[in-house]
């Protein structure tokens, strides 16, 4: 049971982000790509926020966001993309998929922890 699902193919980023969130009193689950993220989200009904990379093998983060809304029918979980991408077309695709926000890497936890806490209630 976790509040936040961190999805990234990079172990470095998964470790960095989840350690920061845990230090701030949040519970975290991790997934290694979009497919894994969908699977973990389906199994854990307590997840309130997904923080996901965009470019990942097997399934990218935007496709995962689209499938969260369409295949899983989950319209309530908040989704934030944490990525090196800043292409406006990708952001538009994210918006259309119900992505709530966009962070361009690197992850600077202190800048966003307040917003993250609000999103997980």
């Amino acid at each position, binding site marked *: 049971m976790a509040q936040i699902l961190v999805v990234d193919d990079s172990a470095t980023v998964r*470790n960095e982000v989840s350690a920061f969130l845990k230090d701030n009193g949040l519970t975290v689950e991790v997934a290694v790509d979009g497919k894994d993220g969908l699977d973990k989200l389906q199994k854990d009904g307590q997840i309130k926020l997904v923080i996901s990379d965009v*470019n990942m093998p097997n399934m990218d983060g935007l496709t995962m966001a689209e499938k969260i809304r369409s295949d899983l029918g989950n319209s309530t979980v908040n989704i934030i993309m944490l990525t090196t991408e800043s292409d406006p077309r990708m952001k538009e695709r994210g*918006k259309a998929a119900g992505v709530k926000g966009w962070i*361009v890497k*690197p992850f*600077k936890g202190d800048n966003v922890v307040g917003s993250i806490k609000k999103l997980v209630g």
Partner: protein
Amino acid sequence: MTEETKIVSKVLVHECDEQALELLKKMCTQNNLVGLKVSTGDNTIGLKDASNEIDDVLKSNVDLGAVFLSEEPDQNDVSGMDLCESIRRRRPELPIFLRRNNTDTTEDLSPAVQESIAGCYKTGDEEKLNQLINDFICSMYYPIELAQGIEQISKEAFENLISDTHIRCDQPYLVKDQIIYGELFSLIPLESSWCRGYMMLQTTESEVMDLIRSVRTHIKSDRPDTRDSNNILNEVTNMIWGGIKSRYFSSEDSPTDAHRTQVPIIVNHSQKHISFGSTEPQLCFKYTLHEPQRPYPDVIIYQRLIFNLSWDPDKFAESDKAVEDLVDSGELEFF
């Protein structure tokens, strides 16, 4: 980087004539070449030893741009004709230039020597020497602003992923070499309307493992393995790639389908050699990651940009202006 930043290229020089050497030095200065001179005057050195010395330089300097030889024998009776074939065998991508006393043609040379050298210049012929340098070493123009930007983006990526580290970058330089440094390298495509090619990062695995052991990365492990070192290189590559895309590639300037040609990339593990099918010089950066407080070995990372599929630097200036509305990294932008 400072205003004095320039893109250089290292060249190997075997030259015994003082006047010819002076001309080479002048041309090196004019063209931002760094000359590495091998011994020509020690009487105890014969052909075998001179070749070995060149071999040593070839082994230790993986990032050369060209080789300058002379048909005139040195004090050990070793001439460029004696050396060029073995250099060519070892490093076929390096252009070899031969100084000749009475001509700048190759017709009277043996077929094997002719095949080994890229061009000849007559002693004192500054114009021909300059032409060879321009044709073979400086044949690809890289805007200094691009080099400065890539260095800045890369340093930021290293700083974000690796703590307590001083990062030094040598002057960016052009290389013709296609030698693989270390055991670990990453490769990621760079694609826009003004360039198509790859960025490659090369490093040594053991130093990256030490980096992890020293608890300067987000991988926490006393006994890191290959997956851990791969992860570090993966994320550094990803961050730099993203930074380059954000700064220099406009969202509107993706290459069209018509431009999506590809060529095979060939890797020869026994020779530690990678070929992208192009002989144009690559833009190379050498980063040294130094831990000032503790005695861990420096981590050397070579970064190469290989625009083997398309390169239009004139459009680069336009692209720089076209990229606007950049989001500050690390900030959450709500939709």
